[in-house]
């Protein structure tokens, strides 16, 4: 048992760390609803004028839509490639199976600057014009792992005997996939897709290298941040970015912490 003093010290330290992370976020949210256009404390009062301005700013609107399209595109590629890779590794044996996990996980560990540079060089070499498509491909490289990891973890927890039982009861391979395997992994695929979307939505480094003339929301924020007359708008954009990252991540974590007993063997 710790002494009272030590326990209070620990609580204060925890609060300090949490405050360090979340107070700046809170500041952004407060300024998004600030009546004044300048960053100064205390805020002048509550107002929706900057939200209104943000909704009317076509540059910001376009950047926002572009980011959503890219996020959905990257998540879609990640779902297809990540799920297929997970199924292959979890359910079949083939040469190089052990290496696949490493190959799939590696891009997320690779510095973004290297990924960006390499992709940019490759796209230039094969004459692929930079734009939304090249950004989607760039984001997909590190988004695949999110779906892959979620799905393979679920497949490993799902007993093989479920698929065997389905087959034993007369279902062919496709029926087994549709009635047993897919329901078992569905929420894991969705969770992976949401995480992939969130990761793509706020990515900056790879985007800079592969964007060409396209402006995504993070890039718009990055550019506008230095312009005095845009500062208030940046806070509103920041709030939008926070929401679009927090909501998918929250849903994803709810989806993956599902009800235990996967095989139903033990109570």
């Amino acid at each position, binding site marked *: 048992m710790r002494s009272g003093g030590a326990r209070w010290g620990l609580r204060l330290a925890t609060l300090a760390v949490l405050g360090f992370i979340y107070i700046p976020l809170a500041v952004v949210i407060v300024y998004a609803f600030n009546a004044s256009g300048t960053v100064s404390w205390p805020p002048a009062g509550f107002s929706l004028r900057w939200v209104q301005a943000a909704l009317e700013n076509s540059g910001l609107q376009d950047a926002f839509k572009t980011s959503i399209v890219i996020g959905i595109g990257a998540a879609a590629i990640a779902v297809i490639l990540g799920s297929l890779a997970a199924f292959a590794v979890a359910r079949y044996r083939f040469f190089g199976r052990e290496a696949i996990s490493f190959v799939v996980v590696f891009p997320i560990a690779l510095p973004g600057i290297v990924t960006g540079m390499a992709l940019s060089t490759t796209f230039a070499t094969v004459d692929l014009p930079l734009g939304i498509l090249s950004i989607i491909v760039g984001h997909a490289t590190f988004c695949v792992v999110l779906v892959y990891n979620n799905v393979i973890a679920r497949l490993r927890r799902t007993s093989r005997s479920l698929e065997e039982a389905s087959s034993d009861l007369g279902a062919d391979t496709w029926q087994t996939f549709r*009635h047993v395997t897919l329901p078992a992994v569905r929420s894991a695929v969705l969770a992976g897709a949401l995480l992939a979307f969130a990761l793509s939505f706020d990515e900056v480094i790879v985007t800079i290298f592969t964007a060409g003339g396209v402006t995504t929301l993070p890039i718009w924020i990055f550019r506008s941040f230095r312009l005095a007359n845009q500062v208030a708008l940046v806070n509103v954009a920041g709030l939008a970015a926070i929401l679009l990252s927090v909501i998918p991540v929250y849903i994803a974590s709810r989806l993956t912490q599902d009800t235990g007993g996967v095989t*139903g063997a033990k109570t």
Partner: protein
Amino acid sequence: MPILGSGRRDPHEERVATLTPQARPSDRADAASPPAVELRHVVKRFEGDVGRRVARSVDAAGGARGAADAVVAVAGIDLEIGDGEFFSMLGPSGSGKTTTLRMIAGFEQPSEGRILLHGEDVTERPPFDRDVNTVFQDYALFPHMTVGDNVAYGLMIRKVPKPERERRVGDALAMVRLSGYERRKPGQLSGGQRQRVALARALVNRPSVLLLDEPLGALDLKLREEMQIELKAIQQEVGITFIYVTHDQEEALTMSDRLAVFSQGRIEQVGSPAEVYERPATPFVAGFVGTSNLLGGAVAETIVGRAGTFTVRPEKIRMGEPDAPAGDDESSALGVVRTVVYLGPDTRYIVALDAGAELVVTEQNLSTSSMEALAAQGRRVRLTWKRQHNFAIGG
């Protein structure tokens, strides 16, 4: 009909007179109706990756190893299982009994040999194209479906019309005493209830053969004993062939019409519970199905009066004072009680014989208290038993 182990009896040995002759279902059937399940020299080798993994578990259990990287899980099995029979496959883990069951279900392909169901060769057929159903050790209930949908699954796949489906699901759940549980999820059931849902899900399809892979392994002792009785009753009610894999010899002896004892990928003996228990064909069977109580070599010659290896069941031996007389028709030996294990209804004595072997003796605690039983430790005793209970082992 080749029944393994039946030719191994010692012709000089007295027969156990009281043994009930067990009619084998396949003997009863006329030659025109083939056995429910027939295995012809079935071999299963696991190779490469899987082989190495299986090798680790099999090596620990003393299994057979084949060529480099290949593990022989099943080393040539011939077996016929009759229609309507309750047949158990008994053996320690790694003995090949589960692999054999999985080959009958179609989850594993035999490396050699043929598998026939009612005379039809199904060796190449996938599991969904075989008229057998399986109750899995972990039950394998679909967690996202209700109990009703789980039981209806096989009927749904076969496109049985909904009214008939519902009626049959209701009947199946009633049979396992789970009427009214249709809408529950497997996660809301106890272990014993899940076990019965798994049974209903398999039986609702009216398969010709039901395969059960250690279905009671995850249940506690009391529930297991209840389910043993219930399973046997259900089997008699539906008249389906049950093939039951277990490592629990008591379970196999109480439930089966016949059983096969597996060791290292081979069948050591096939027979009725009484045959296998009273007349084990090999020392392994003697040890696995009961307490081995083996007398071999010089010890056998001294006590039994003949060369060979003999086994005596612990409950056949009487323990008395060292000067107690032994009849002409009795074998006897002097020894010292080394260990006493009090088991409630009976007491088990381990006696070190002067001649050099050890025998286990069990006695019912008819008038003995635990204190008296435990006081026997270290005492000199004479063991006597009828000569006809010296059973010679062929192996």
